[in-house]
């Protein structure tokens, strides 16, 4: 802790409540807008139809309405607490700047109940659209979308999935615990490899040393985000999410799950946990207490904070001067953890769908993109201009190493 002060119990609960709303907002967007078109419309459907508009055309306009409504709920909860949903200036060292009154609590409780129902619906939709289609189940279980690595996720003291606090647990390719560390210990366990062609580093398990992009026993590569979290934990923290988790493991052959397309299912199980925890917190008698901050009195110095971002374990390490001005910072953000796995997953998917003599179509490009998309990577989103570029291209080389074709999503 940079400021040497712990938030009050109510402040922790309010921060958790805010964060569950954030998780719900993010996970709904990924599943419905990005993942579901591949399954509802089909991986090789016309790109003009393989989008959220195609999805609602097929599963019903009312589903689109529910998507927008629940994302708006999540945004409203964040705005209620943080003043604004985007870039809220609400969390302070030792607590938060604003609490909840009873009227707001009741409003959140109603929205949370609705989110739980929507999470149930989403899991059912996954079952109906994906699991009841043997072709999709085979695709999920296929070798082209399987990557055998270690897994990382934050867990509570019962080794249950925790999005907000706890210890980072890393398990090996067979699901055995390798180590568990507190945020401040992260440098003892995780190191980052640098390649000259990218500004994004490749984190790996320090004690194993960088061995290149290799999977299997002994690899130092680990995966974070929903698949990593569900593999690294022993169980979910809420009853309905746990029920869904058991079905997930039973269907996919037990832990650890190495099938990267199963990440979409894992994401919905997490949506369930976030919604259940949002409701639990909204019904907690302590949530409306006005004891929301411990004023820091010490001199700021250094601290490490870790939580689970929707896209993976997020580590922030800051060192400050005596005025609290940051003089040194190191961040390992969600997507960065998955940098090596994403690279490897794309290669495997490409090798599985591009065959000699085969025509390279938009469908093939999408099958490769599906490996990338499973990680919900946070690339190319730092700018937002209308007509801006999204530089996602596939270069296909022939067996002689000569460029054969370039495909993009234009």
């Amino acid at each position: 802790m940079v400021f040497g002060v712990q938030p009050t119990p109510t402040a922790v609960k309010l921060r958790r409540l805010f964060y569950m709303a954030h998780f719900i907002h993010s996970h709904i967007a990924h599943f419905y807008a990005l993942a579901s078109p591949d399954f509802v419309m089909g991986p090789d459907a016309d790109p003009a139809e393989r989008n959220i508009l195609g999805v609602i055309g097929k599963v019903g306009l009312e589903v689109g309405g529910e998507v927008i409504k629940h994302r708006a709920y999540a945004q409203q909860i964040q705005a209620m607490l943080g003043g604004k949903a985007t870039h809220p200036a609400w969390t302070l060292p030792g607590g938060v700047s604003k609490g909840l009154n009873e009227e707001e609590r009741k409003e959140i409780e109603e929205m949370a109940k609705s989110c739980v129902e929507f999470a149930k619906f989403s899991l059912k939709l996954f079952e109906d659209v994906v699991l009841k289609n043997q072709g999709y189940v085979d695709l999920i279980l296929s070798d082209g979308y399987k990557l055998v690595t270690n897994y990382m996720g934050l867990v509570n003291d019962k080794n249950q999935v925790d999005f907000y606090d706890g210890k980072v647990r890393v398990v090996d390719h067979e699901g055995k615990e390798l180590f568990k560390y507190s945020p401040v210990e992260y440098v003892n366990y995780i190191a980052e490899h640098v390649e000259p062609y990218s500004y994004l580093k490749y984190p790996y398990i320090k004690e194993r040393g960088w061995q290149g992009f290799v999977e299997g026993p002994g690899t130092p590569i680990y995966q974070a985000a929903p698949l990593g979290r569900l593999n690294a934990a022993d169980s979910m923290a809420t009853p309905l999410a746990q029920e869904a988790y058991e079905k997930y493991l039973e269907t996919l052959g037990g832990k650890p799950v190495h099938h990267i397309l199963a990440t979409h299912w894992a994401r919905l199980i997490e949506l369930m946990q976030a919604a259940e925890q949002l409701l639990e917190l909204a019904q907690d008698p302590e949530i409306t207490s006005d004891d929301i901050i411990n004023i820091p009195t010490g001199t700021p110095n250094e601290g490490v904070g870790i939580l689970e971002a929707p896209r993976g374990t997020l580590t922030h390490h800051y060192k400050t001067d005596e005025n609290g001005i940051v003089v040194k910072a190191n961040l390992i953000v969600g997507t960065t953890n998955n940098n090596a796995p994403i690279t490897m997953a794309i290669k495997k998917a490409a090798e599985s769908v591009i065959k000699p003599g085969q025509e390279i179509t938009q469908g093939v490009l999408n099958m490769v993109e599906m490996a990338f998309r499973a990680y919900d990577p946070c690339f190319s989103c730092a700018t937002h201009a209308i007509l801006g570029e999204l530089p996602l291209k596939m270069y296909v080389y022939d067996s002689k190493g000569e460029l054969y074709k370039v495909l993009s999503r234009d």
Partner: protein
Amino acid sequence: MLAEAKIRILGCGNIIAGDDGVGVEVLHELQKRTLPAGVELVEAGAPGLGMLDLMYGARKVIIVDAVADGGPAGRVIRWREAELPKKTSRAVSVHDISIRDALAFGRKSVPAMMPDEIVVIGITVERMEKWHMGLSPAVVEAVPAAVEAVMKEIERWVGQDRRD
């Protein structure tokens, strides 16, 4: 609450990505003005699908955003929803959808909760480098014109309201 404003102005962009932050800068200038009741200014970040959450329940919406079309820097463009270029069908990021798709999704799924009218005020950018704060001179010069363009829309809508 997000659902209460009649007219909502969404200032989009990232202030640490050079000219990409021009939408937010326009919003900051609008904050210095006295605006009619029922007008809400929202710092929107870089939303795609999230655009819908921010306009849910509003009657009129103005989106102020950077435009990277290779045109002269500082040009202020006004688009009505139907006039949004097709090229915006490209996603803003790999984990989001385009503004055009988002609006079409909203119009189909929750027509009653979508604004009656959406106007986009775009400002053509010069450079959008990451980790750079501040706008290039031509874009700075365009901010007052973009503010006036937004004010004109607000006045038009408030005038309509009075006549209704």
